[in-house]
C-alpha cells in the first residue's frame, strides 16, 4: 500500500489552474524525483502535500486513510516533513538547538523545567551518526558548510519519525563536493524506509539517487515511470514539451 496517494488533485488560484487532475503515489523506501520547469506546478503540489493550502479538488490518502491538512502543522503531525530550499535554520543557534527547535527536551519537574542541552546534543549526535554526517551538535549553524546544514535540516525530519520527507531543491545552493554528501543523506533516508520526494532542477542529481521520476508540465503530470526506463534526454523533452508525454 502506498504511504501517500494523491488522486485527481487540482488547484486553482483565481482563473489560473496551477494543477489539474494530478495523481501521485509514494511508497516507503523510495526516492521520487519531481521535475518540471518553473511554473509547472511542482511547488504547488509540494505545498498541498505539506499542508500549506488545501487542493481545490481531489483527495489525499495517507496510509489508506483520507487526510485534510489545513496548516503545515497538520501535515507534520501526520508524518510529512519539508526541508526547504533556503534551509530554514537559525544561524545563531547550535546544530542540536536547530534539530530540537520547538520540541526541546526539558529536564526538571513540574513548572521547574529547564532545557536539557546535554540530552539534546547526545540525541543530535546519534542522528548525525545515522546520517554518517560529521556535524558537531554544539557547533553554531553559522559556521557550517552547506552539506552540514542539510544534515541538520534532515536530522530534524528524522527526529520526528517522519514517514515522508519533501526535499525542495536540496542541492541548489551548495558546492559540487557537498552535493554528493547530500545525495548520500537521501540514500540513508531511503534505507530507513522513508519516502522521499526530491524536487530538483539538477538532472544528474535526480538520475543519481531517484528510483522513479515524475514530470509536471503546465499543471499536468506528463510522466511517471521508473528512472531506469527513462533518460535525461527524454526528461528534458518532457519538461520543455518537445515530448508530449511518456
Amino acid at each position, binding site marked *: 500500500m502506498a504511504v501517500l496517494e494523491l488522486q485527481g488533485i487540482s488547484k486553482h488560484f483565481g482563473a489560473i489552474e496551477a494543477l489539474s487532475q494530478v495523481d501521485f503515489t509514494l511508497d516507503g523506501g523510495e526516492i521520487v524525483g519531481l521535475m518540471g520547469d518553473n511554473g509547472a506546478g511542482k511547488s504547488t503540489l509540494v505545498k498541498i502535500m505539506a499542508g500549506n493550502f488545501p487542493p481545490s479538488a481531489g483527495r489525499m490518502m495517507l496510509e489508506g486513510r483520507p487526510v485534510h491538512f489545513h496548516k503545515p502543522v497538520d501535515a507534520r503531525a501526520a508524518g510529512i516533513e*519539508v526541508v*526547504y530550499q533556503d534551509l530554514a535554520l537559525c544561524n545563531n543557534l547550535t546544530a542540536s538547538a536547530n534539530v530540537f527547535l520547538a520540541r526541546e527536551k526539558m529536564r526538571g519537574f513540574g513548572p521547574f523545567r529547564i532545557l536539557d542541552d546535554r540530552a539534546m546534543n547526545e540525541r543530535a549526535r546519534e542522528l548525525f551518526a545515522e546520517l554518517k554526517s560529521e556535524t558537531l551538535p*554544539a557547533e553554531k549553524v553559522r559556521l557550517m558548510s552547506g552539506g552540514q546544514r542539510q544534515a541538520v535540516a534532515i536530522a530534524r525530519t528524522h527526529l520526528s519519525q517522519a514517514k515522508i520527507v519533501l526535499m525542495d531543491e536540496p542541492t541548489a545552493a551548495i558546492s559540487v563536493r557537498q552535493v554528493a554528501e547530500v545525495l548520500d543523506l537521501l540514500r540513508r533516508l531511503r534505507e530507513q524506509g522513508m519516502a522521499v520526494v526530491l524536487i530538483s532542477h539538477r538532472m544528474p542529481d535526480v538520475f543519481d539517487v531517484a528510483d522513479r521520476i515524475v514530470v509536471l508540465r503546465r499543471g499536468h503530470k506528463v510522466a511517471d515511470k521508473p528512472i531506469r526506463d527513462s533518460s535525461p534526454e527524454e526528461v528534458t523533452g518532457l519538461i520543455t514539451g518537445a515530448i508530449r508525454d511518456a
Partner: protein
Amino acid sequence: MARQETSDTVAGGLGRHIKAATEIPFVRRWLAAQPFWVAVAVVLICAVMSWLEPDSFPTRDNFFNITRNFAYIGIMALGMMAVIITGGIDLSVGSVMGLTGIVCGLVLQAGHSWWLAVLAGLGAGALCGLVNGVFVAYVGLPSFVVTLGMLAAARSFAVVLSENKMIYEFGPDGDVFTAIGGGEIAGVSNMVWLLLAMTVVFGFVFRFTRWGRHVYAVGGNEAAARLAGVAVNRIKLQTYTLCALTSAIAAIMVVGWQGSAINALGTGYELRVIASTVIGGANLMGGEGGAFGAFIGATLIEVIRNSLLMAGIDSNWQGAFVGAFIVLAVLLQRIRGSRAD
C-alpha cells in the same frame, strides 16, 4: 584539563553543565564574548580614574551614585535586550517610563496605597507594551515605526494626565513608596539590588528556558522559527510587553528615589538603553545578546559619564561619547562577524 577545572570553580556545578552542553571551554567562550571585554574596559577605566582622582572617584559616595545611576538604565536594558534579540527595537521605553511615573504619582496623590500605585504603574507599562506588541507581531508593522508612535503617544498621555504639573504630594503611603526606590541595603541602593536580581533572572531565562531559546530563534531566522513551530507572534508580543514592564519598574524605582513624578521623566533614555544593549553585545539584526551584556553595557556608559564629570569635562559631551561608543560597538561586531565567516 586545567582549564576545565578553572571553569568549574568559576561557575560551580553550572560550569560543568554549560561545558557539556557546548563542548567549548567556558573560559574560551567568555574570552570570545563582547561583554567580557566591556567588563575589562570598565575595570580599566575605574583603575585609571582611581589613580587620577584618588580623593573623589574611589569613594563610597561615588560608588553609590554610579551604581544607582546605571541601575535603572540597566533594568530597562534587560527588557530591551529581549526585544533586540528577536530582531526588533523599542524606541518608546523613555516615554513609557514617563507615563508610568505619572500614573504612580497620581494614584499616590489620590491617597491610595503604595501597592496600588505599583500595580497601576506596572499595568500602564504593560498596556503600552501590549499595544506595541500587537502592532508589531500581529499587524506586522515595523517595530521602529510602532514604537516611535508610542514614544510620542505615551509622552503625550503623561503630559495630559499630569496636567503638565509636577506631582510630589504623595499622600499617606508616599513614605513606603519612596522607601522602595530611594532606600538602600548594606550601603547599596535598592535599585542596584533589583538590577542584580533581575540580571540573574533574565540570564537564567535567556539561557535555560524554552522561551529564551525561542526568543533567540525568532531573531536568528523568523521564518525558520515559524516553520519549526515556534509561536513567533506570541514570543514577540511577550518581549515588547516585558520590555515595557522593565521601563515601568525603572519608573517606579526612580519616582520613589526622587520623591516626585514629572512628565519629562525618561526623555532621551531610549538612546542610553539601546546603547547599553549594543555595547553589551546585542546585535541590532537580532539573534545575539544576553543579560550580562545589558548590565555591563549600562555600567560602562555610566562609568564613562562619571569619569568625564570628574575630569572636569562638560557633561554635555556625554552624548558624543555614547554615540561614538554605539558605532564602535557595532563596528567591533562587524569585524568579529567577518572573522567568524
